[in-house]
């Protein structure tokens, strides 16, 4: 075990990785091994390596992935506080997604609508499966309306809904017309629609774009710089930290998709002048559609990591071409970084040289590498749970991705320029110029190009593969989610949850970076790992060694 680690650490070469990969795959039935093989890459940046991603999960392999419903209702729509989200289906789906993603939200007033702590479901019964559930759904929507008079009601379809043919869209239209003062819209996000949560993100983007974005044209402040932050879900209060930063800079955050958001902010978000994209995987559709329809340019940014945050703010300032803003940004960065650097200098003494693996999400496995680098830690391997090839290889690869049967299920909206609301935010030549300077203006370069040569990249890793990586490489920390957490920890390696942050956070922005450094320091240096073997067994080992010698 240790021997393997030393070998890998000293050479970190392709041969060792390949040997370990072959050993792992040899456990699988041959067909499965051939399929999994394509999801492995030993990174060589700049060589145009391809990785297999966003394809069907191998049944029974113990995947990290969840379903389309989870991506739609749980991830994208979950954080918006004032929509009554009704799950149309048996009780489980609504129950499991009830508050478990810990999206924090802060209404301005005590009396503001906030349904975050509520779970709404039609709790379908067998008679609804046999005779159809539309009638029950209509009654449920009516009851929700009568009880709460919300601004909006959203309907989320679970697996049986699509199979029995309930038309949630027709029901939503009918109820919306009936009420007149409540936006009702549905999502065909049945769990089986796609190969992972990712399909649910796309479905969520489409329906929000169709039913919410662009429905309120009023510009509510006279702030000069107006942006949206896309793909930031306020896990652990990340959005609060970013709101703090933008507020200090005098930049108006029209809408966040969808951390700490309201439906009104999303309805109004087409009036912003720039979209900053955090999680490319879950929200790139929205960025593209808003660019086409309303003319809002987008940039890929990353507020995970203090240096990455600074870089992202500078990028935004460059776009707005405003000396005052640039000055404010520089001032903020120098103040915030001063604090961060003091903290990290102390912590780095204990984390430098330690190793990490990240297998999580559709952008987090990439973003969080920044924070580990700031701690002088080494990334041994990384991979996504539900990302696509563009998240690994960059968007340049998009034209060459074949659309398979599973992706074809998801509607691609035909979006055109809005005759009234389209507005050129920046001269095309200036935008082109920005693109020349920065490869991530209206583009994402993906994870692989930013990882060191010789690191291992694995898509949709299974439990068995994770367990073997732990055995072979013994990283000092492994990043994944709740399902993986205790199996890895029982193997003696701490696991940092990067979905729920282990109930800590925020980790975004400058204050978040410091929180992360402290948490990782605690995890990789905790005393418990040295206390696991009882002292009498340690003694026995020493005695045995003595006798055998």
């Amino acid at each position, binding site marked *: 075990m240790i021997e393997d680690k030393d070998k890998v650490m000293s050479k970190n070469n392709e041969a060792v990785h390949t040997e370990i990969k072959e050993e792992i795959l040899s456990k699988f*039935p041959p067909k499965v091994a051939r399929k999994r093989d394509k999801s492995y890459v030993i990174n060589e940046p700049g060589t145009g390596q391809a990785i297999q991603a966003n394809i069907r999960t191998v*049944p029974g392999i113990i995947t990290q992935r969840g379903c389309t419903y989870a991506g739609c209702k749980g991830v994208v729509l979950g954080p918006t506080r004032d929509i009554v989200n009704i799950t149309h289906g048996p*009780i489980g789906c609504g*129950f*499991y997604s009830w508050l478990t993603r810990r999206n924090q939200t802060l209404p301005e007033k005590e009396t503001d609508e906030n349904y975050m702590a*509520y779970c709404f479901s039609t709790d379908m019964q067998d008679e609804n*499966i046999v005779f159809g559930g539309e009638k029950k759904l209509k009654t449920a929507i009516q009851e929700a309306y009568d009880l709460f008079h919300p601004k909006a009601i959203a309907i989320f379809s679970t697996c049986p809904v699509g199979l*029995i043919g309930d038309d949630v869209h027709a029901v939503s239209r009918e109820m919306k017309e009936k009420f007149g003062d409540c936006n009702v819209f549905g999502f065909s996000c049945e769990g089986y629609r796609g190969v992972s949560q990712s399909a649910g993100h796309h479905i969520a983007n489409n329906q929000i774009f169709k039913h919410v974005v662009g429905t309120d044209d009023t510009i509510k402040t006279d702030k000069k710089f107006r942006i949206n932050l896309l793909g930031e879900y306020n896990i652990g209060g990340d959005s609060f930290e970013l709101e703090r930063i933008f507020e200090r800079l005098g930049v108006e955050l029209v809408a966040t998709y969808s951390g700490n958001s309201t439906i009104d902010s999303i309805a109004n978000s087409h009036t912003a002048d720039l979209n900053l994209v955090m999680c490319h995987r879950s929200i790139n559709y929205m960025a593209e559609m808003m660019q086409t329809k309303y003319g809002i340019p987008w940039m890929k940014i990353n507020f995970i990591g203090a240096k990455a945050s600074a870089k992202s703010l500078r990028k935004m300032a460059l776009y707005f071409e405003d000396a005052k803003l640039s000055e404010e940004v520089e001032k903020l960065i120098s103040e915030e970084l001063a604090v961060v650097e003091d903290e990290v200098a102390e912590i780095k003494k204990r984390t430098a040289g330690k190793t990490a693996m990240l297998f999580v999400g559709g952008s987090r496995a990439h973003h969080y590498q920044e924070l580990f680098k700031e701690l002088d830690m080494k990334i041994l391997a990384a991979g996504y749970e539900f990302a696509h090839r563009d998240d690994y290889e960059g968007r340049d690869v998009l034209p060459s991705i074949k659309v398979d049967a599973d992706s074809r299920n998801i509607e691609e909206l035909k979006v055109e320029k809005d005759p009234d609301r389209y507005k050129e935010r920046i001269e095309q030549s200036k935008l082109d110029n920005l693109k020349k300077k920065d490869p991530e203006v209206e583009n994402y370069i993906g994870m692989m190009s930013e990882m060191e040569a010789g690191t291992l990249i694995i898509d949709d890793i299974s439990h068995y593969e994770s367990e073997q990586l732990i055995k072979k490489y013994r990283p000092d920390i492994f990043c994944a989610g709740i399902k993986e957490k205790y199996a890895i920890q029982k193997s003696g390696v701490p696991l940092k949850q990067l979905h729920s942050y282990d109930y800590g956070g925020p980790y975004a922005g400058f204050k978040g970076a410091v929180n992360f450094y402290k948490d990782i320091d605690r995890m990789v240096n905790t005393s418990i790992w040295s206390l696991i073997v009882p002292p009498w067994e340690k003694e026995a080992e020493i005695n045995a060694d003595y006798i055998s010698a």
Partner: protein
Amino acid sequence: MLLRHTKKEVADRKALTINPAKTCQPIGAMYAALGINGCMPHSHGSQGCCAYHRSSLTRHYKEPVMAGSSSFTEGASVFGGQANLVQAINNIFTIYDPEIIAVHSTCLSETIGDDLPQIVANAEVSGKVPKGKKVIYASTPSYVGSHITGFANMVQGIVKGFAQPGIKSNDLINIIPGWVEPSDMAEIKRILSLMKVPSIMFPDTSGVMNAPQTGKHEFYPQGGTTSKDLSRIGSASHTCALGKWASESAATLLSKMAQVPFTICDIPIGLKATDRFLMELAKVSGHEISQELEFERGQVADIITDMHQYLYGKKVALWGDPDQLIPLTEFLVDLDMKPIHIVSGTPGKAFEKRIKEICATKDITPNVKSGAQADMYLMHQWILNEPVDLLIGNTYGKYISRDMDIPFVRHGFPIYDRIGHSYFPTVGYKGSMRLLEMMLSAIMNKMDREAPEERFELVM
């Protein structure tokens, strides 16, 4: 206020469930299967089901929950999930090498009509099930019953998969514990060993869902009922099935398959239910109730006499699963407390009847509801109308507790935000002591917090 939108006025709802007091069948099937040694639960549906159940059980136990999924896509949903399940069975045996795979269905595979017995038979015929290994299964449509129903169905699946008629051993008792914590299962086993009653408990998650940290992940921990023991359940002289909802159907099936007579006991929570359980054990085994147990009973009675003043007359709202709520309500009544609001999402008319009977012995007329729209929203409304001094139920009660500043004892499933339930039982007399400690601490902490300075007490 986190639950600021709850209306005090209770209006009848026919279709909308708000803040459920139950979840769906498959998670119960998964939990039951984890109580078999060397068993890998498998969810036949889209992979979100499995991901959600694993996440939920993991949050509750803070333990690895290993389970497979058939990972349905649209194609499987249209053409049937047979190919996915057969492939999954092959992959699981090849990669993870369990003794047993316990397959449960989901709303998806039930709606399209996948036939588990036929698919499993097919996997066996085509050589995907290695010699000596076994695939058991249960039909667990999410749109019927609740997580408790799913648990009961998988326990039936265990009986179906293992029971064989055998020569009755006079000295062997089966215990079907129902959906209780691993700590509770361990406590029931301790009681049996104190009474020297040879027994087989199934399922048994003790040692699985509260496994030690050793630095090595045991994919199949030591705990769980072994297949060797399961092959003997048909030879037991009697089955004690704890809880009508979670255990009756399996006991009934076993009596049909192997002529093992059974009694349905309440889960031994509180004094009287534990008394009855011990007497039943004594009756069916011919063994005496041990002195140690009588000693523990005396300790429970002692705590109650010592601390009665803090419990007397206190109003309680409780929610959870019927098999737990019935003996718990009885215990509260015996403590001279007043259980006035009781909700269970699991359907069953017999539940409401039992609760009313128990409460009637002390002239309490509770608000009680089970099944459709018996949810935490209704519970909250009842509490707004008639406030209580104590809440007992799963983690979701913390929102009501915080908004209304009501002491809160966590009990049932899920408990996402505290530890203890997997290590310390609430069944048996030991469990009664723990319940008393938790209730008293919750009530007395509030007294301490709110007492005016001049009336703040050192000794209580």
